[in-house]
């Protein structure tokens, strides 16, 4: 099984950059509270984010992210701020 690192390498900057990358949006253009579904986040993109972040050592799942689709909510859920 793959190792889950004790200190996940997901940062606020990377989270936002990953979101912008899968949406094909320019860096820095997605607002904290923008509804990501309105920006074209679909189930396939979401699933690829879940997998990317799991590989970075963050425990999350598709459904949790789908319920509150914004950068602010995901930062709260994933970064333990």
């Amino acid at each position, binding site marked *: *099984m*793959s190792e889950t690192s004790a200190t996940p390498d997901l940062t606020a900057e990377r989270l936002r950059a990953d979101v912008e*990358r*899968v949406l094909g949006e320019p860096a820095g253009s997605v607002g904290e509270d923008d509804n990501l*579904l309105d920006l074209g*986040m*679909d*189930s*396939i993109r*979401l*699933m*690829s984010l879940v*997998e*990317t972040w799991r*590989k970075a050592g963050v425990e999350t799942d*598709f*459904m949790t992210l*789908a*319920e509150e689709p914004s950068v602010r909510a995901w930062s709260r859920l994933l970064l333990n701020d």
Partner: protein
Amino acid sequence: MSVPEQFDVIVVGGGPAGSTLIADQGHRVVLVDKQSFPRYQIGESLLPATVHGVCRLLGVEDEVRAAGFTVKRGGSFRWGTSPEPWNFLFALSPELSGPTSYAYQVDRMTFDHLLLKNAARHGVDVREESPALAAVTDGERVSGIRYTDPGGRERELAARWVVDASGNGSRLHAAAGGRRQYSEFFQNLAVFGYFEGGGRLPAPDSGNILCAAFDEGWLWYIPLSDTLTSVGAVLNRGQAARISADRERTLMESIQRCAIVRDMLGGAVRVTEGTYGEIRVRKDYSYADTRFWAPGIALAGDAACFIDPVFSTGVHLATYGGLLAARSVNSVLAGELPEERAFGEFEARYRREYAVFYEFLAAFYDMQQHEDSYFWKARKVTNMRAGDMEAFTTLVAGAYSAEAALVRPDTLAERFSASSADLAGAVERTGAARTPSGERMTELFRAPVVADVMTEMNQIQRRGVGGAITEPPLIEGGLVPSPDGRRWIEPDTAPAAGTA
């Protein structure tokens, strides 16, 4: 008899399982089928993994789309305690509907023929009207088959691998050395026909399959076109004598006992001529073979296993088995993996998929309340017999060796009861179709038994849409698909995570 013709792979059966074995790796592949296509087949309701995953991998997705099949966004169920139908949609919500959140209802004559023609286009030597007679062995492994050509001559084919995709009516599967183990729990009979002019569920559910329970069983109602509907009654095997005495009457009486379907068929007329004019009967007993492969032969589709049709799993399990077999054959023929390793992965994944659907369907049947009827009483998880538990543990043995809850009969009933309670609770919280909550599948998808059945289907769809991806192993200690999805590789040799 002449010298056997030599191939790399022989496929027996030109249905969806067999047509998934295309020749895109430079292998010489021959496919024999006893029938001439197009031919009638039941199992008309598809799942998204077949449409967006397997069909895309096979390069036939555009053609399937162009065929104009009815778009199915999910299933509608008059099932369980609620008098109102509820939806099991493929999308999490209308906002998250995405590109893979629908499937099709297909006329199987057209769909299967499309897939078979696609296989031929991809280099498979397709031979119709060529029934397989028997497997040929060299003492240690299956090394070919004998079949009859359209002229009635007996011929022999030799290959390194035979894939038996010949369906439920063939005996070739015995060459893998196992036997078919039947589930006592799902021993149903289906009696079905076709109607013109039946009603449709309100949009956007008009393309959904409707499954509606009644006291003696349940009915499927599949909108194949704007006007043509496939309707079938699934009854207990105890009704066999009644069905064989009068098929039409049994079907019509079942419809009369089920208010929602009776009302939908109010102005409809049963088709009485042509392919759709016949009332057919099928034995819907669920089974799985005790062995899915032996050196030189692998089983795929109904040759390997079959599970109750209420969740439209037939074509999915068939194309999934075909895909797994193709990956294993490709890896072994390329000399990249020993056959025990490659086909061990094939069997473990295939059994896992069968097992998760088995548990899901057992939980699903357990939700229905008609406890005064024999049909439903016999399908309560608490009424599963010890023999059925043991059969199940045999069927999944190996796939889940780490999970004691699935291989110990005494804990299995407990686990299935818990799954059923989860599912019933999730359905209740989701609420009726055409309510805001009924459009959101969060509760349902969160139920562990549902999440389990979605795991592999989601991966297959993602691969179809996203192209080359890397996946973690599904089975502990197991293999992963190669980035192109066509072979198996050891997980530590997989390239670093790429993003599609």
